[in-house]
């Protein structure tokens, strides 16, 4: 009965209802897009950085992180792989042997990061072979050549097919020195990597360091970023923690996590302002409605309508309007986000350079995580309901005689 009354009331003044609904609709849509966009950018950034560097989660020999020496490596273990892959969220595993060395070509010498990799596993995750700018990609773990970041190559003034000299520290104090043919150059987004990295096939790197069959880390790639903590926890359950340590990228790259946190608090302020503006718009329509219907409400009370019932009807009206606006907003939001996930925005020009400086693909993805839709719609709904309490409150205080005469 009350519901029907409220429903009919809404459509008595169509124009007012439509204006209110549209304002809610656009708020929800905008809020969803902003949130989805920023989340998408972060996810993309994390995925990018993480796939070249640490992986979402890394397994090390216990104690490696505190003392990153080649002596803290562990024996490559097929059983460990099996154990990790049992987890359905784990999509890829990348074995790594990461060391530091001096690289020298002609009269140039530079400190470098040597990443011993499995080239096939690596390219499945980060498409390293597509980043080749000159020469060729290393094909197998037995390949006898290396691939350099092109920033490093230009600092050493070296080209494809030149021979690079590496000198470092080997396993158990053995020497690690060798000459390597440069097979290709890669252009990586992160300047830090691009200017320092040497990709070396795993077998070759293990031989150079006298660390046959040993790894510094297994990087774990996941299908989604959101379940990081639970996944880390479940991985810790499944492997021997006396021997290994499990670390998430947030622990290994706290600076990136902090950057995202700082940046996203900025976005929170913007969405906060958005909500603020919207609530004022909503409030003004409610005020107008009260003003218009004062006479009518006064009569209703005078002929015996209970004040709190009347207040409730007004509340229902606002909730209905908000619900319509919100659901329309969500539907539109989903459509827009779906469109952009299918056809992501490719950045060009200066913006593209800025993104590449951050080491991120210059593509804007939207996050299609359902979280975004639900929270944004809920926030708008709650705000509008809170505001709708005002007319109810006004009704309770209304003096029928004054209202009728107004």
């Amino acid at each position, binding site marked *: 009965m009350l519901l029907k009354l409220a429903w009919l009331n809404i459509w008595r003044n169509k124009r007012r209802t439509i204006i209110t609904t549209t304002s809610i609709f656009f708020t929800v849509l905008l809020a969803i897009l902003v949130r989805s966009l920023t989340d998408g950018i972060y996810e993309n950034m994390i995925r990018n950085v993480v796939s070249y560097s640490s992986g979402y989660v890394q397994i090390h020999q216990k104690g490696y992180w505190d003392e990153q020496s080649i002596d803290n490596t562990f024996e490559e273990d097929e059983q460990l792989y099996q154990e990790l892959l049992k987890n359905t969220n784990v999509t890829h595993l990348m074995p790594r042997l990461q060391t530091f060395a001096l690289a020298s070509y002609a009269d140039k010498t530079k400190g470098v990061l040597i990443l011993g990799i499995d080239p096939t596993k690596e390219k499945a995750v980060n498409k390293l072979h597509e980043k080749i700018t000159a020469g060729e990609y290393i094909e197998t773990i037995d390949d006898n050549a290396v691939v350099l970041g092109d920033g490093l190559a230009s600092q050493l003034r070296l080209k494809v097919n030149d021979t690079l000299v590496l000198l470092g*520290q080997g396993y158990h104090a053995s*020497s690690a*020195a060798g*000459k390597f043919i440069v097979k290709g150059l890669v252009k990586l987004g992160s300047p830090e990597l691009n200017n320092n990295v040497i990709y070396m096939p795993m077998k070759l790197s293990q031989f150079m360091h006298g660390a046959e069959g040993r790894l510094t880390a297994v990087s774990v790639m996941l299908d989604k970023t959101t379940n990081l903590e639970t996944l880390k926890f479940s991985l810790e359950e499944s492997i021997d923690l006396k021997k290994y340590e499990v670390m998430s990228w947030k622990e290994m790259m706290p600076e990136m996590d902090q950057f995202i946190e700082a940046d996203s608090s900025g976005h929170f302020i913007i969405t906060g302002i958005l909500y603020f503006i919207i609530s004022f718009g909503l409030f003004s329509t409610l005020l107008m409605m009260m003003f218009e219907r004062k006479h009518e409400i006064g009569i209703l009370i005078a002929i015996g309508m209970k004040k709190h019932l009347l207040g409730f009807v007004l509340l229902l009206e606002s909730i209905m309007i908000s619900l319509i606006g919100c659901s329309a907003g969500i539907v539109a939001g989903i459509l827009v986000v779906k469109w952009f996930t299918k056809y992501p925005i490719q950045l060009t020009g200066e913006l593209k350079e800025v993104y590449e400086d951050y080491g991120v693909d210059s593509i804007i993805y939207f996050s299609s995580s359902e979280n975004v839709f639900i929270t944004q719609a809920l926030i708008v709904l709650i705000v509008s309901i809170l505001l709708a309490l005002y007319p109810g409150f006004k009704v309770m205080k209304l003096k029928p005689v004054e209202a009728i005469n107004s």
Partner: protein
Amino acid sequence: MKNLQFLKVIIGIIIFTMPLITAFSQENLSAKEIVKKADDNMRGKTSQADITIKIIRPTWSREMNMKAWSKGDDYSMILVTSPAREKGTVFLKRIKEVWNWIPSIERTIKLPPSMMSQSWMGTDFTNDDLVKAASSVSDYDHKLQGKETILDKDCYKIEMIPKPSAAIVWEKVIVWIDSEDFLQLKTEFYDEDGELVNIMNSSEIKEVRGRKITSKIEMLPVDKEGNSTVIIYNDIIFDTPINYNFFTTRNMKQLK
């Protein structure tokens, strides 16, 4: 009567030689002379040695064999003969310079002074210890601090403070030198905060080709328990002439 005369002669001789003996004996030697004697003992004019080095760590250990040549304070050369990975690696010290030949990359690298205090081939010795770029005689001021017994031997305890001009990382070094054979049996290295950093023990005194040497030298870093490096002299020949042009970067590459 004759006996008495003989006794007199003996006593006379004893009395006469007494001051001579004391003069030669330790009491009158200055701290610097003691250190110089000990230094000469292990160095000789030239030396040619066959050495085994053991690196001992809590979880692993490693052994290397090398040959070493030296001439005076200023020239020395070390060739690694095993393990196979490092075979052919050569270190050359020429006056104050240190060169390193690495056959696998066919490069000769000059170690910068900044690397002199870093670990040499993963051992507990520094590059500086290896080449003895600093002379224990001329780069330090010496002070005799009395006598102590080490390995059942009477030793001088001598404190050595680096001269301000010398490039030495230690604040002070204390050595114990055997008063009989003048062998350095123990050394303690203190850093600039006066903290004990390294202890070097020498033992297993052996006579090799007519000369007494300590054939085992053990380096123990104080703050790293379970870590040590042991040098064993398998053979050493002193004073066979070695030409100066043996100690060249060119010769490093052909050393066998």
